[in-house]
């Protein structure tokens, strides 16, 4: 269960960490009930500030992906249908829209977009 960050990227490091954790969950490598390493441990492994990792964990907590339990640390929530509330799906669609729009503006055809979307899905869901 490796995560990697690119310190020179434009994407802030805490977002990179959060995204990688989400990806590990989507791939089924991390499951509900699994604990993430302590903020200190992950920060020292990646040589980043503890606040950075803390921020990623809190972002994931806000999204309902993990629970921060005093003493036992950050625990992944089981993926349950309830989390996909109307509000959540509205938010995700809202985030997809500008990306799809950008792709269209830059000349990607709707078919290509669909193709990319399904190949990403295959990658995450496939073996």
């Amino acid at each position, binding site marked *: 269960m490796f*995560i*990697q*960050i*690119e310190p020179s990227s434009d994407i802030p490091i805490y977002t990179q960490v959060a995204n990688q954790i989400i990806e590990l969950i989507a791939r089924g490598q*991390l499951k509900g009930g699994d604990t993430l390493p*302590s903020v200190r441990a992950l920060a020292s*492994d*990646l040589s*980043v500030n503890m606040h950075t990792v803390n921020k990623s964990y809190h972002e994931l907590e806000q999204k309902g992906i993990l629970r921060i339990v005093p003493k036992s640390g950050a625990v992944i929530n089981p993926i349950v249908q309830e989390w996909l509330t109307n509000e959540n799906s509205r938010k995700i669609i809202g985030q997809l829209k500008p990306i799809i729009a950008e792709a269209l503006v830059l000349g990607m055809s709707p078919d290509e977009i669909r193709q990319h979307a399904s190949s990403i899905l295959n990658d995450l869901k496939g073996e």
Partner: protein
Amino acid sequence: MPLAIFLITLAFLIVVQSAIPFLLKRTIVFGVTIPEEHAMDSSLVSFRRKYSAAVFIIGTISLIFLVLWSANASVSENQLVITGLAIQTGLLLLSMALYLFFHAKTTNLKKVKDWNSRFTQIRVADLQSHSKDSILPNFMYVLPMFVTVGLIVYTASQYNLLPDQIPIHWGPSGEPDAFSQKTPFSSIALLLMLLVLQVMMLGINAAAKLSGVKLNAGKKKSSQLQQLAFRKYTSWFLLLTTILLTILFGFMQLTTIHGALQNDTLMMALPLGFLVLMLALSAVYAFKVGQGGSRIPVSIEEDETSSVTDDDMDDHWKLGVFYVNKQDPSIFVEKRFGIGWSINFGNPIGYLVLFVPIVLILLIAFFV
């Protein structure tokens, strides 16, 4: 006797110092990170060879000089000790100077050849590293302290038996050659120093546990196995050192209390045995484990990723030796030129772990 000690340590220094470039990771050359595929660049190979050859040849010449010179009957023991120390210090300074020279050359070569530009620099971590970590539990380091505390209590109970002059320094032959007036403090000063050392070792182990497991971007899995092995063996090495120190100091304390135990052969053999054993242990450790476990054999297939490389962190390594990173919560980091741990100078806890004990020991020595 001093000659034998100097010859053994000097020979050890020559072998280890000249072997160092070959005990290190291929991708860190004289404290500079080099992408895997350029690590064996011909200039870098020649830098390594030149360093080793210079240390080895000059070291061997001075060793031969020491032997020949000491055969001269007019040489006093004092002269021998001073020359021996001077040669050892000289050899260490020489390796440092050579290191700095090649560090500058490697830095320059990396810049001129622009090795970094084709790669994206990344840092990798495994979420499970720490659950697989087998650094010895801290309580193992507490056990030898019971021996020390037991000896302190025993010394107190035998206070009347103690001589009026407490030995505080031992000569090369194991005979005490400096004494201090008997007081409750001076009678246990040696044990207090031992206790400080034991606490320091405990602190090092605890700090190592809290330090990051740094993986190599191109070899995630094998570097993880090596890192974990490095952590495990280093903590075993430290524990063995602690145990040997406890035996040595404990024995010296017992001979002070019971003069009858002062057996000349044993008094000489024990410190010498300690020295030889420590050198042998360090050599085995250096050659078996290598830097960050780089000599631990692993056979694991890695996914080839040629477009990424390790984040070089060169900016955080002053002169390629001193790690200063305020962001990194690690207290210790693996050494870049050498084998073992080094302090993260950006994290003040590291100073506490190493320097407070040294100051305490100096204070005890001063007030005895």
